[in-house]
């Protein structure tokens, strides 16, 4: 029976997390349009339901019923496969994120841990799956048989490879401090108030992580792969209806995971900012912190213009990587001197 209960717990957790992630993605698109609208002194979507709250559903229905075109010059199997790779990797990324501590089901002694998988190599898992997800964009652009698509996907490849280096290096400081790759362990070490959060010990790494994270999920100012004004949408130029929606959802799911990882690594995960506030469940704190990051991602999109492609590459290799290396060296030096 124990195994059966475990199985039920796993399935319920997977379904709940998947549903929450999808709802989060749906309303993130709404929030983005709303916030960008207000930044640009417009209203944003306000026709579907109150405050346009039903807009995501109307978009989903539209995506489902649009005609699904596959261009004649496209490589059909790869063309169909590419959005799937994107969405699968973006969703499975969330499996290792701890979004709460644990609770006991009332009336039993069954402890439910609020994460899908608690693996020893959580941080590496995130990086591995993110690197698989990049194939979706690259193959999608290549398989369209379109020169804009190919240019977009080649830019995506170069940009992601360069910024992945700085992203990985910026996080190494956290690993040195916490001596583990297990995400729950990293969160536990940040317990006891906001002054214990890693962001105070690794401020440089935090800033580098945010900038490289933006480049990794192809957000403005690093949205070179799709650059509407020069590439007419880049890698997803030939995609329509549900396949385009899958790419879109993958991008937003990846954005949620980037924010969740920032919360976990730097802002103390589900830990409350003050110890006396710990009567509020950890999930609430986690969601609140995540919302701050998601709002930041949208806000900066309304603020910064897009960089030029060569500027992005120069910035990545000549500024981000040396800074991340310096941060790593200083962290290592301080930790080894303190013993």
């Amino acid at each position, binding site marked *: 029976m124990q*195994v059966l209960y475990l199985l039920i717990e796993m399935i319920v957790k997977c379904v709940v997390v998947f549903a929450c992630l999808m709802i989060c993605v749906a309303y993130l698109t709404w929030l983005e349009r709303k916030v960008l609208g207000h930044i640009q002194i417009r209203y944003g979507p306000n026709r579907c339901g109150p405050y346009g709250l039903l807009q995501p559903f109307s978009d989903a229905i539209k995506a489902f019923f649009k005609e699904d075109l596959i261009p004649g010059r496209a*490589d059909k*199997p*790869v063309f169909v*496969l590419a959005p799937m790779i994107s969405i699968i990797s973006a969703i499975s990324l969330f499996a290792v994120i701890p979004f709460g501590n644990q609770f006991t089901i009332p009336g039993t002694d069954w402890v439910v841990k609020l994460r899908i998988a608690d*693996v*020893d*190599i959580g941080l*590496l*898992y995130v*990086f*591995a*799956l993110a*690197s*698989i997800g*990049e*194939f979706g964009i*690259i*193959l999608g652009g*290549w398989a369209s048989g379109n020169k804009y698509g*190919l240019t977009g*996907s*080649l830019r995506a*490849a*170069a940009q992601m*490879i360069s910024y992945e280096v700085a992203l990985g290096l910026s996080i190494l400081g956290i690993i040195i401090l916490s001596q583990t*790759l297990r995400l729950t362990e990293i969160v536990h070490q940040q317990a006891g108030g906001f002054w214990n959060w890693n962001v105070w010990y690794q401020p440089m790494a935090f800033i580098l992580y945010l900038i490289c994270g933006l480049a990794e999920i192809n957000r403005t100012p690093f949205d070179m792969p799709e650059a509407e004004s020069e590439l007419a949408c880049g890698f997803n130029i030939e995609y329509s209806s549900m396949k385009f929606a899958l790419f879109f959802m993958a991008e937003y799911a990846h954005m949620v995971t980037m924010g969740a990882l920032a919360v976990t690594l730097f802002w103390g995960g589900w830990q409350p900012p003050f110890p006396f506030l710990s009567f509020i469940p950890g999930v609430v704190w986690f969601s609140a912190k995540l919302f701050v990051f998601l709002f930041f991602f949208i806000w900066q999109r309304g603020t910064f213009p897009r960089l030029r492609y060569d500027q992005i590459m120069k910035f990545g290799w000549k500024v981000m990587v040396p800074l991340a290396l310096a941060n790593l060296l200083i962290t290592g030096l301080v930790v080894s001197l303190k013993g």
Partner: protein
Amino acid sequence: METIGTILQWLIFLGMAFTSILASVLLITRKNPIHSALFLILNFLCVAVIYLLLYSQFIAIIQVLVYAGAIVMLIVFVIMLLDLEEELRSRLKLFYSKVIGSVLAVLFLFGLIYGLVATSPTGKTGSYTAEKMSANVKAVGEALFNQYLFPFEVVSILLVVAIIGAVILSKRKLS
């Protein structure tokens, strides 16, 4: 319960083994190099699952991160940048490379068979057993930075030399 677990492990192993063999065969028979690269990814992922069955989480994730992620990404990148049709038009004869390749492959096969069939040369096991290595990343790091520090540094110097060499070759002015 034990038996169900064992059967499940066997089923996963068989599935992954056959998929990886199928992927390897498709990898060398496809005409389109991008399709070959895709089957290479599939093969790497199957091998990563087999590592997981051996309780080696770290090796499995490094397999995905480094091989399936980074290296195949570079391969795809190069394939997209090069004009492959030019090579086909020039009707390059691949006879010698095929012969050398098959000889190397057969030698490698013999090496594998020897490694599997022959008993371990000394018959002793070290302090870093498979269980210990698979348990956590710490054990791998300890082995790498204590026992194998010198080879590790040699490899890192080799990589730096390769990077600098590539930069110098690409920066050379054609006069």
